[in-house]
């Protein structure tokens, strides 16, 4: 065991790294949470449009597509709020990550089959590129980015400004060094 006196200057940079990492989690939570919330809020007013969008992927039978179309906006809104609040952070991030994987699979499959996922039908009056499927690649990249956010949050929850910490729900599995206040844990593993 290193003497505490000599450990002190070594600990400081380490501590700032840990602090920085927990801020990364906060940012990831805000990015993913706000995006999910907005995506859900746009859809929830008109679930029939959302059902139509799910059906357009031609992956699910109609009844299941109806359930998903109605349920997805609600799940997105709730998970979005939980991530922003940092409440039940890790499970919320897991759900967010699963959604992103599902979106990535769905979009890739629609792209591969040449489907167009629109909320209406458009003629594409002979304009350049109208017959291609614009945007799929960007949607995939965007969702991959969100998936990364989710993965980071699952790896290092709950970050700064998290209700999990305030309520004492933050897990006890991170044996972080005495980092003080919110984001850490009881430190039972440290010695």
């Amino acid at each position, binding site marked *: 065991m290193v003497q505490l006196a000599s450990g002190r200057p070594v600990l400081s940079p380490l501590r700032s790294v840990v602090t920085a990492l927990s801020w990364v989690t906060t940012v990831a939570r805000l990015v993913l949470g706000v995006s999910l919330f907005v995506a859900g809020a746009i859809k929830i007013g*008109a679930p029939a449009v959302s059902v139509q969008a799910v059906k357009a992927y031609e992956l699910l039978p109609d009844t299941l597509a109806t359930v998903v179309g109605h349920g997805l906006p609600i799940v997105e809104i709730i998970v979005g709020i939980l991530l922003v609040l940092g409440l039940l952070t890790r499970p919320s991030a897991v759900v967010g990550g699963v959604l992103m994987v599902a979106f990535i699979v769905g979009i890739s499959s629609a792209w591969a089959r040449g489907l167009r996922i629109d909320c209406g039908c458009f003629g594409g009056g002979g304009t350049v590129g109208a017959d291609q499927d614009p945007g799929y690649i960007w949607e995939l990249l965007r969702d991959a980015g969100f998936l990364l956010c989710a993965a980071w949050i699952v790896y290092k929850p709950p970050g700064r400004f998290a209700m999990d910490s305030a309520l004492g*729900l933050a897990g006890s599995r991170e044996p972080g060094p005495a980092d003080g206040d919110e984001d850490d844990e009881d430190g039972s593993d440290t010695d």
Partner: protein
Amino acid sequence: MSKRAREASAKARAAAQREAVRKQEQRKRTTMLTTIGVIVVVAGAVTWWSVRQSASEEVTGALAPVEIQPDGPVVMARPGVTAPVVDVYEDYQCPACKQLELTSGSTLKNLAAEGKAKVVYHLLTIFKQEPTMSNSLRAASAARCVTDGAQWLKYHDRLYQEQPSETSVGFGVDDLVRWGRDVGVTGADFESCVRDQKNVAAHQQYSAQVIATQKLPGTPTVMLDGQSLGTTAFVPSALREAVLDAAK
């Protein structure tokens, strides 16, 4: 003695620590369960609201008279009802139009039957690629072979039920004839009219003209007195409210 005392106090301290940890775990579990409970209640309430406000109406009672105009549009209204006008621009092959009919078709029928609106259907062909374009043309042309308004509306609903995928050839003439017979289309020359696709040219002309003059971005588009309702058309309760407000 002193060793025993030390051991005892160590034991006590350990026990106290275990107790504290146990209490903390318990508190954590209670908070967790409360949080989950609140989330479940909120989710349930939102689901209930969402399902309720988007629930489709049942068609009750007799429909308003349906009249086919010579150039293509089909008017559904009680005699003397001229406003507000709800224009429905749709394509038999368009999946979003099918969804609109499934969701809000009954509301439009009810509003017309109640004398609260004059509903005008405009069947178009929005697609410019195959197989969707030919599917749409065959269906729209066949529907124009129906001469009776009430029969037309039944056939129109049946065509939406039978809508093929956008990626496959569908709305074949044999099927189009059979579905007509199923819903009670009686015209003597209905079958030959469908098989010969007699109305394709007339339909294409009407369709192109409407898309150009209305500057339609796509289908379905539902307009209330000339203003597009956007996604409101997909929310039966909101659609009804908008139409009733316009009638005031």
